[in-house]
């Protein structure tokens, strides 16, 4: 039995993510103990870590940093011990160096790049809200078996712009190319919401539950 922690720092999609991870675990018969916790010590000891997040970059960053010992526990578990990590939406954005939503806020800095407001061409609406197709840029185990022309649910006004294009795992087209997923080593992050993306999303979460980074 492996352990997975879903970090509770007051984010709105925490329980949706929990429910979807449980459904995904059942779907792939993964022996995983899923725990929702705001305890840094639990996070440091877990085998897998999921960081959810919705809303505002600066608020989420402040919320995460307000949890005693959480940032150093994450550094220890994810960067030093290389535990598989999944960030969802703002949870993914937080692993960038900088968030540019209402001023400049430092992220965890695990992926070089900024999180900046999307400026879609052609007068398209912001937020980018709804189902959009994924264009896979990496042959990544977490993106395996999503089917032909996979579509996932997005709702965001900001997106990560990685400095190194090799960190981009998938993009989506919305008046230009937008980073939909990033991946490097034991890190994976989705701008979209797998917990709201029906079977494609559950498959991605199931893939994460069984992913063994090289």
């Amino acid at each position, binding site marked *: 039995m492996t352990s997975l922690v879903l970090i509770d720092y007051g984010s709105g999609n925490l*329980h949706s993510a929990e429910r979807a991870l449980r459904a995904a675990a059942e779907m792939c018969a993964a022996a995983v103990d899923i725990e929702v916790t705001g305890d840094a010590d639990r996070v440091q000891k877990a085998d897998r870590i999921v960081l959810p997040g*919705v809303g*505002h970059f600066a608020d989420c960053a402040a919320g995460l940093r307000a949890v005693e010992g959480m940032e150093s526990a994450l550094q220890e578990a994810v960067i030093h011990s290389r535990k598989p990590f999944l960030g969802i939406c703002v949870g993914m954005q937080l692993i960038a160096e900088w968030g540019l939503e209402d001023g400049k806020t430092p992220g965890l800095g695990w992926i070089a790049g900024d999180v900046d407001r999307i400026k879609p061409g052609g007068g398209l*609406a912001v*937020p980018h809200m709804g189902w959009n197709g994924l264009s896979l840029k990496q042959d990544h185990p977490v993106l395996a078996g999503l089917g032909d022309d996979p579509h996932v*649910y997005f*709702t965001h006004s900001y997106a990560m712009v990685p400095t190194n294009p090799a960190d981009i795992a998938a993009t989506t087209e919305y008046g230009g190319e937008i980073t939909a997923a990033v991946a490097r080593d034991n890190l994976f992050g989705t701008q979209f919401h797998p917990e709201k993306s029906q079977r494609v*999303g559950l498959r991605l979460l199931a893939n994460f539950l069984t992913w063994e980074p090289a």
Partner: protein
Amino acid sequence: MLKTRIIPCLDVKDGRTVKGVNFVDLRDAGDPVALAKAYDSQGADELCFLDITASHEGRGTMLDIVRRTAEQCFMPLTVGGGVRSASDLVQLLRSGADKVAINSAAVANPAVISECAAKGGSQAVVVAIDARKTGDHWEIFTHGGRKPTGIDAVEFAMEAEQRGAGEILLTSMDKDGTKSGFDIPLLKAITKTVSIPVVASGGAGSAADLAPAVLEGGANAVLAASIFHFGEVTLAEARAAMTDAGAPVRPFET
């Protein structure tokens, strides 16, 4: 490219769906959770619950329905009806709603929109506008379309966006229930004014009525209640009609 969302809407009163529902293989057509699951498996892109409960007890029931739906349906869920404050919004989000629609409370006091956006983030705040043509403009009506407010719908939509709404759910009170198609001029007036997504509501009578809301009206999503509930149009037919008309939808295989 972003696909047009097709959103079935369920009216819920004291824990039961009102308006007839005609689904095969459904034991209890009045159970909102069972219906949500049915729509989920048919490939709805999002689901909307409208709580028309009058009683205080019914409110708790609604939270339970949202909770049970969110346990089983892994798609976006919008809940509206009777939302008065940011604390109502937070309660619904915690129960499993992804977005909360505010209507009368936002019209009565637009500051509620800002408070909700600060608490839940813009992506969670839908401002529902019920508009009726009055002379040469559209006026907002509340209380199920009975109460005129004197407020201009286009101006209010702009204010909603400025205050942090992430989406507008636009219902034409002139078209609602007529099954004669969406109100294209109203949609155009709003979608060319705001840059946030607009959901078209009110008037869908057939699968062919859906695409014009997007192609002519500029809507990002279409919402309908009765055509889906009565089984007049299946989601598969709606998807096919949209695609044929040139408004692409999400590929979905049942």
